[in-house]
């Protein structure tokens, strides 16, 4: 076999072309959507999203990839009102008062044990069925009766059974609670995603003896809600169009007539699509790209007055080395907080209090709260106390679909080495990551997560519920449980007296350090300057009824 001596240059060119082709054709690079927002009327919004799930029919939620859509196709009886937060920040939610939504009002009995909700009579579902009390009661029967729902866990102790709901009349439903102090939690969970109300008439039509809640049917038929939008064209994994639900009153919100959501997996390509005007809004952009857009005159990067989205390091307490409190504390002193905020989030994150309770909550106090700063000497000292004078090694697991987690892990690895903590980074696929997270198999992992309801009881129990897949560190403590219960017993959960008790529970959790709340992260989206109305929500979703788009 002979070879041309002149083949080197053509092969070099071919190799370069091949690399370019690979870069263009692999999952890391994607084409931008073909429908251009610039040619649409101002009543159409085009949004670039990173992924789209396929299962709509879980008992109370849906696939992770579909969650951002749910707040627009489903609705709750009440909601947290939107309020202005300052000249330089986008409006947010009032976390501790609740206003009308599907219910026009609600009353509280004198003893604080019965909450009565009065439904609007002018709302119909996407299928055209009017909202009734039967829908409310059946929805909660579904949430508590079907397997796999999160409602029983995150609604406790306010709602523990669908039997707490009773029909007063065709448009009035009452909910009874065991303790008046559970009232705030009741309202909070009914205003968030576990409070969605479903079209029971439609779902019952497709129920079977084996599937009394029509979970199978609803998996691929998403329009069983009473939300402002319904799902129009939907291609699993690629695109979904939201169209106005004519049965949803306009006084509750309008927004564009149509919202076209297009999947662009690569963050850089989403960024380019927004910059070029191919889309009006892009979600889940990289922090560095958001920072670079801050001074753009054509693109808006929203800043929220507060954020409940956390970068969390979970240190699993069910195995070494983090079954030892001293080791967990040592790790907390070995995290380079400021470096992560600067190098990973480019300033679009804050350290916060180091705890997870909302510092703006009435009655809140951070007195005696342990604050971890980067202190490698202190970390080394704690390791020595724990019997590891030469340091320890462990594996830190991250989700491969969230690049910032890998970057943060590298920062931690570099900084923690000074303390004798040798970190091996394990990057796994999203499905493997969430399976491990739920099964509590890693030694430690980084994740981005948030508590949707920011009432103290919800926040403190979300990540500490025994045997829960949300108990990120698989940590339980009788003393912590007692502290939370004592706080929950206070008649007014937002009083100063309650604040002292919530603080005691928070301080105990922070001190034990199964979880480290590394940084509170700003919203990771941007939109064209022709778009307005974005409101920060605790569920991190975009309420498209608030969005306006000028031509």
């Amino acid at each position: 076999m002979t070879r041309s001596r002149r083949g080197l240059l053509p092969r070099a060119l071919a190799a370069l072309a091949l690399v370019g082709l690979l870069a263009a054709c692999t999952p890391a690079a994607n084409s931008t959507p073909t429908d251009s927002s610039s040619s649409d009327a101002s009543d159409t919004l085009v949004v670039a999203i990173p992924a789209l799930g396929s299962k709509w029919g879980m008992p109370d939620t849906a696939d992770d990839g579909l969650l951002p859509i749910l707040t627009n196709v489903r609705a709750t009886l009440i909601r947290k009102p939107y309020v202005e937060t300052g000249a330089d920040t986008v409006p947010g939610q009032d976390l501790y008062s609740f206003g009308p939504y599907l219910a026009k009002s609600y009353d509280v009995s004198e003893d604080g044990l019965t909450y009565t909700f009065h439904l609007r009579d002018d709302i119909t579902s996407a299928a055209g069925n009017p909202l009734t009390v039967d829908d409310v009661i059946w929805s909660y029967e579904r949430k508590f009766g079907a397997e796999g729902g999160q409602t029983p866990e995150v609604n406790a102790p306010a709602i523990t059974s669908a039997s707490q709901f009773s029909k007063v009349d065709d448009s009035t439903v009452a909910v009874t609670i065991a303790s008046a102090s559970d009232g705030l939690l009741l309202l909070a969970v009914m205003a968030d995603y576990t409070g969605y109300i479903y079209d029971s008439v439609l779902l019952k039509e497709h129920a079977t003896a084996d599937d009394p809640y029509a979970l199978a049917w609803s998996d691929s038929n998403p329009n069983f809600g009473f939300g402002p939008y319904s799902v129009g064209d939907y291609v699993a994994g690629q695109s979904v169009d939201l169209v106005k639900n004519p049965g949803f009153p306009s006084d509750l919100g309008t927004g564009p007539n149509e919202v076209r959501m297009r999947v662009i997996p690569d963050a850089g390509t989403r960024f380019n699509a927004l910059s070029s005007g191919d889309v009006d809004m892009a979600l889940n952009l990289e922090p560095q790209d958001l920072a670079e857009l801050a001074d753009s005159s054509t693109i808006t990067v929203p800043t929220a007055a507060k954020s409940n989205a956390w970068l969390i390091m979970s240190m699993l307490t069910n195995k070494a080395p983090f079954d030892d409190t001293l080791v967990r504390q040592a790790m907390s002193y070995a995290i380079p907080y400021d470096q992560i905020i600067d190098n990973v989030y480019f300033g679009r994150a804050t350290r916060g209090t180091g705890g997870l309770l909302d510092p703006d909550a009435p009655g809140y106090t951070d007195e005696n709260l342990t604050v971890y700063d980067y202190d490698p000497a202190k970390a080394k000292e704690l390791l020595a106390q724990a019997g590891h004078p030469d340091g320890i090694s462990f594996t830190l697991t991250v989700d491969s679909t969230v690049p910032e987690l890998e970057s943060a892990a590298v920062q931690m690895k570099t900084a923690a080495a000074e303390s004798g903590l040798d970190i091996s980074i394990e990057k796994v696929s999203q499905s493997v990551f969430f399976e491990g997270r739920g099964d509590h198999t890693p030694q430690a992992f980084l994740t981005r997560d948030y508590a949707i309801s920011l009432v103290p009881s919800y926040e403190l129990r979300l990540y500490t519920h025994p045997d829960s897949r949300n108990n990120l560190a698989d940590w339980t403590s009788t003393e912590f449980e007692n502290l939370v219960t004592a706080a929950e017993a206070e008649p007014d959960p937002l009083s100063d007296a309650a604040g002292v008790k919530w603080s005691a529970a928070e301080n105990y959790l922070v001190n034990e350090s199964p979880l480290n709340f590394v940084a509170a992260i700003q919203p990771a989206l941007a939109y064209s300057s022709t778009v307005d109305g974005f409101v920060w929500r605790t569920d991190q979703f975009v309420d498209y009824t608030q969005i306006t788009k000028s031509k």
Partner: protein
Amino acid sequence: MSTETTSTHPTGTGPTVTDLTVTDSPNTLTLSATPGRTPARRTGRRIRPSAGALRHAGWLVPAAIVLVLTLWPNDWLPFPPTASVGAAGSAPDGVHWFGTDSAGMDVFSRTIASFRIDVLLGILVAVLTTVISGAVGVLVGFFEGERSVTGTITRLIGRGLDLFQAIPIMAAALVAVVAFGLSIPSLVISLAVVLSPAQIRLVRTEVLRVRELGYIDAATIAGYGRFRIAVSRVLPNSVWPLVENLPLIFATSIMILAALGFLGVGLQPPTPEWGAMIAGGSSDAAVGRWWTALFPSAALIGTVLATLSVRDALVVSVANRRATGRG
């Protein structure tokens, strides 16, 4: 009428048939064997670098550079290749010659450090593939025609390899990596398994030719066992295509390794490896941060081209030798 036939024993081992005489009586066969005399000495066909190849030693310069970079100690790099040492995503400057990536790691240091990982893995895969292919290819090619249990087994192996070869290499590599894990030993074994079938076919084809040559019959007549013949006679005369292809296998394994890293199933971060660097850098490149993908891409391309230059030098050398028959 007589015909003179020479055998091809580049290693010069064992008895050698140098003459085959056919008389007017076709039933008379005269053989003469000259122990100790090898065809290689008689014909001068020992394979050594030709003058032509030596003239093209310049082709080996890129490979020499790759070798130097592969052996370059990490301690001599400006920054540790697995540590965050600067502001994330900064452009090339006087401190970070190739800039930094999204984790603040120095791209220059990581690009150079990747040589050791990728080239070492490539060498291991190439050697293991060659060993596996040579052994299996000879056995399959030599015994598949026999009506015996051994023949049946080798035929089944051959058909199995044909089926396996129908699977796209990247798909097979992905499955193998997922099955065996992401450590260096498992990656080497996975890639060697995936790359072997084509090489086995190559060897098998050569064996099918070689086993029909006269000295094989002579060895059989001389009483050598089949396995001994396969190892001592057939193997040395059949693996040269493998040797010629060894640089190509090396280059292919590096590209597959890079592709696996690009797809997120390569070595774990922050191990410096070109594929993973290109994967992370491709998203950056889309937004104008070109340096995180460009430099590892250039290193990958340069290494592959350097390898192909070595192969070219080797092939030209052999081609010249076969054409001229000169040593």
